[in-house]
């Protein structure tokens, strides 16, 4: 590809089947806490796809 550089990202479609273990951190976005948005946390399962 000469016009588009694709950055390596987790494929959310595939994570439908590979994800869902529920071991990840809760993600309170509240300003008065750790304000962890979903995008700011890693996957606990370290699922390989």
């Amino acid at each position: 590809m000469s016009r588009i550089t694709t950055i390596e990202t987790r494929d959310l479609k595939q994570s439908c089947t590979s994800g869902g273990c529920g071991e990840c951190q809760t993600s309170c976005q509240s300003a008065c806490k750790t304000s962890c948005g979903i995008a700011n946390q890693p996957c606990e399962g370290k699922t390989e796809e």
Partner: protein
Amino acid sequence: MLLLLLLCKLAKNVKIIVVLNITAEFWELTMIHTYKLNGKNFVLDVNSGGVHLVDDLAYDCIEFLRDSGAKEEPLLNEAARNAAILQLEQKDYKKSEIAEALDEIAALTEAGKLFSGDEEYVKLAAKKSQTTPQEQKNVIKALCLHVAHTCNLDCEYCFARGGTYHGKHTLMSREVGEKAIDFLIEKSGSRRNLEVDFFGGEPLMNWETVKHIVNYARNIEEQHNKNFRFTLTTNGMLVTDEVIDFCNAQMANVVLSLDGRPAVHDRFRVTPGGVGSYDVVVPKFVEFAKRRKKNYYMRGTYTHFNTDFTEDIFHMAELGFDELSMEPVVCPPGSPNALTDDDLPVLFEQYEILALEMLKREKTGSKPFNFYHYNIDLKNGPCIHKRILGCGSGSEYMAVTPTGELYPCHQFVGDKDFALGDVWNGVKNFDIIDKFKKSSLYSKPQCGDCWGKFYCSGGCAANAYHSCGDINGIYEFGCKLFKKRIECGIMLNVEKTLLAEARNEQI
């Protein structure tokens, strides 16, 4: 051929799906977000999580396909390709170059990285929301323990009003703390990692109980096959060497509240007598961070009075802190502290300044720091299940008051409409649990066509409730800032990735 496939995909997207138990209607939607930042063109394929850096021609092509293709049947045929070529030739691109860009776009569409749909997600959300009002099997994996409804500071912007949550000054007893731990273990099912957050008011005003609860949990975690992760949020006034040592041994994270420059910090973070706390807390925090090294956050709040908040972040970095977070204040719109729509352009610029400064520091190696909202793990971020579910308040996460009552989260504490039950008798108010369980990204109508949705998960239920009276609503002002942060965060991450690759190549 591939392009035809793409155009078919674009055309079939207006399918209305009524989700089980979810009253709102959603479209099976392809969604592309484009933006320019730091002289580069970014394209996000929202549903797959794809991130692309593209040249000007590909950028214009993708925007044309998105804007004209979404609802138009005629784009189903080869004429569509010609239409794209015709349109883009007017922008002085060469026909052969346009054809090349269209081929690349088509290949990525075929690979599921551009113009992908969300049909599976709609079904997933429907499945997750299937629950009956008397649902007993709710798995809880995190508790926020309000160990002290009292505070030694009196910050005007605090939503907990001097730490009391509009009630009496109270401290949690050891017995309530132990019971809360038992309750969490019992309700956590097969979940191994359990989180407990010591919160207040000021938790260090009940420090002996905090230590007791930690020791109690540590003594029984192994026999229940659990792993507790503790977090402490503190204003710093009562930090001592002993607190630092205990936290370093036991707390997975500590959150230290500092608003930045002395005058900014002391405007709000004052003792009940009105004395600023900067001079007391900063030396303690410096010592804390020095001995801790990682897994802490300096957390500040910015208001209408310091819309130049990057100066406060840089001040923290000057003090030697390198894990930083700075939050927009949330307060009633009429308050003089409240951020306004007029502040937005300045705030947007601030987030860009911050990202560019961080990139500069990364390149030069001079005092680099992390900004919490720009920590975006593109490769190993959460799965789609988590992104649909959101923060988990009222289902997998609850708050416990000093007297053992349960609420959906700390922001609902004190609001009797949201009282869930207590740690002795468990949850009794299943109507509320049901509401929170059914609340997901796909139950929030305004989030459906928001490009930020899988980075945000539908936002904070409490903010939504306080701004529009519905946990399935949105806090629109917050959304605007959130999306700007994500744009900047992705830019920074992409630039850092490219930088690392370039460095590796040099080696």
